[in-house]
């Protein structure tokens, strides 16, 4: 077994999982969602082994180029989603969330992403690579779950306003609550991994903890957006639609930090 075979196996399992989740939504049969969940879990397992193998084969952390980090982000997102579904029974989010996973995996396997493991440039040779990138990406994975849940909230809310009641689905109140809980997990992780570990590593590698490099600035922008989310919610009592919009903007900012900055804005963090 090598890493690329396992990666494809994982991709395949995620696709089957997505399929079952969608059939569940259409047929409204709970046990189909359970099958979808099990395939996602199996995918997580093979994915974990694939990441271990990648680390073993390349001799460094499995997130040093775009292919690796996309794969790791997909892994973190599946993990985040599985935890949230177990805790809040949010299986209605399954099909939509799995679409994000499929998109990440498809992007990672696209021929545009060079897959061969390259030796690390000097700046990346540090254990902070592990801490900074993994914690940040897992934080962002929780933002991704909050993003999907917030979109579902907006849909559910619009339906409830028309007087329709979701029979099988989650009420808009519950979606609002789950979205907040995801951010409550993602925000401290993102603060620690993205900003604090980032500052420590930048200080060790470049001699300055903050340079207003585009990637740093965009991490801070993402952090500001979620800070606005938390303050409007906790202090000013905003809920529902307005909160959902801020959570969506926050995830888009995180996405731009992750992708956009690499391709659109040059800076110290240009590792593609």
């Amino acid at each position, binding site marked *: 077994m090598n890493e690329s075979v396992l990666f494809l196996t994982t991709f395949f399992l995620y696709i089957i999982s997505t399929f079952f989740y969608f059939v569940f939504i259409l047929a409204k049969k709970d046990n189909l969602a359970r099958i979808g969940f099990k395939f996602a879990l199996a995918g997580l397992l093979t994915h974990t082994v694939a990441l271990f193998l990648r680390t073993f084969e390349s001799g460094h952390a499995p997130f040093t180029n775009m292919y690796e980090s996309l794969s790791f982000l997909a892994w973190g997102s599946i993990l985040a989603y599985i935890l949230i579904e177990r805790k809040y029974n949010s299986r209605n989010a399954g099909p939509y969330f799995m679409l994000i996973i499929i998109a990440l995996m498809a992007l990672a396997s696209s021929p545009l992403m060079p897959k061969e493991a390259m030796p690390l440039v*000097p700046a990346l040779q540090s254990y*902070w690579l592990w801490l900074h990138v993994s914690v940040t990406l897992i934080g962002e994975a929780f933002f991704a779950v909050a993003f999907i849940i917030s979109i579902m909230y907006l849909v559910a809310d619009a339906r409830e306003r028309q007087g329709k009641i979701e029979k099988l689905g989650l009420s808009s109140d519950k979606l609002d609550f789950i979205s907040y809980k995801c951010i409550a997990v993602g*925000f*401290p992780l993102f603060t620690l991994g993205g900003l604090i570990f980032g*500052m420590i590593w930048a200080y*060790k590698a470049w001699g*300055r903890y903050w340079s207003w490099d585009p990637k740093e*600035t965009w991490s801070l922008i993402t952090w500001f957006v979620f800070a606005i989310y938390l303050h409007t919610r906790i202090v000013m009592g905003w809920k529902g639609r307005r909160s959902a919009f801020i959570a969506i903007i926050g995830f888009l900012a995180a996405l731009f930090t992750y992708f956009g900055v690499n391709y659109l*804005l040059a800076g110290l963090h240009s590792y593609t």
Partner: protein
Amino acid sequence: MKSVIRSFSSVKLAIVLLIIITIASVLGTFIPQQRSPAEYVSRYGQMANILIKLEFTTLYRSHWFISLLILFGINIIVCTLTRFSQKVKRAFSPQLKKKEKEILVLKTKEKVRKKCDSTKIKDVLKKEFSSKHYHLREEEKENRTYILARKKILGLFGADIVHIGILIILAGGIVSGLGGFRKNLSFSEGEISAVPKANFKLRLDKFETEYYPNGSVRDWKSTLTIIENENPKITKIIEVNKPLSYKGFVFYQSSCGWDWKNSILEILVRKRSDPAFIKEIRTKLGEKVSLEEENIQISVLHFIPDFVVNEKNEMFSRSLQPNNPAAFLEGWHENEKIFSGWIFARFPDISRIHSEKETDLHFELKDFKANQFSVIQATKDPGVNFIWLGSVIVMIGLFLAFYWPTREIRMILEESNGGTEIIAGGIAAKNPEALQSDFKEMMSSIRRTN
């Protein structure tokens, strides 16, 4: 004054400031920062002047951006202070005597009546609350007992602790900005250089570049010695990600390069008419070397390590790496220039020698040597410890705010007509489910009492 304080204590102001700072930060990533005025003119045309005047081109250190950050800092201080004293009071000397009404407005509440006296119920409550790790306070007045049971009180302060951490980080930023400095020092092996603003010197003993098998750089390593009062103090090998710290200074492996201006070049001279003729000359840039047999003096005027020509026919070096080394040489006969042109180390056959007169000579750039130098960044950043302290405090605060949710249950036990009426209510803004289950268990254990 009061109205100023009031407006600074408002969370709305904080949010407005956050939004403005966020938008400004976004702008700063799309307008390239700290470039030359000419670049801005070619990019933005007439807008360039306005952008420069409004400091959009040095946005993050502009007066208005720093002012926004300071306003934001003041806002955080005032917000924290105005709420802090109330919170301390609420946490450490809470008011126990609440009216029945105040308890019954809570989301989680209940009112029951038992036919036993209140001491018995109190005993049960004490046992139950302590098994759930609640901290209990009580006060008796006339026929009433007021009970306040709480756990994870520190959670109340989570947000304040985060804000204190952020203030310390902002202060660290100011200290770094005012008191910090960084300078790149270039060293050849064996060279000693004074460290600015320090009473010691730095010597580069050795510099080496390590490569991967595929030829890409694995690491740069500089062996540095600190020299204080003419005595060597410490010797350490630094590399990227492994700097040397000494007396508040930190020395980083920043980059490296070759001292191409002082290269020593080896040039082979051949004669087309005489294959046996071969002569090797060693020269430095600008020196004149005589080829006595030919009565010619040659000199190398330029050396380019990575030669390229652009569309405008301008020659320049693409990088400082010796990827395509080229030398420009001239040949003189007495006071008359007879030829000049480029020769290439990688392409010995393609020499571009233009000559006024026919020349029999052919030149090859055989070898080139330049001292490699190591660039060490010397840094002093007195703000950095504030940053680490602030970061730890922020994380503690975030943990308390999100994962240490305060739970609070209040009760009034009122004895009347041989029985006890119990009014109970609970609140936990950040973890209502846990509170509800605690509350239910408490109430059912009260009901079981007789």
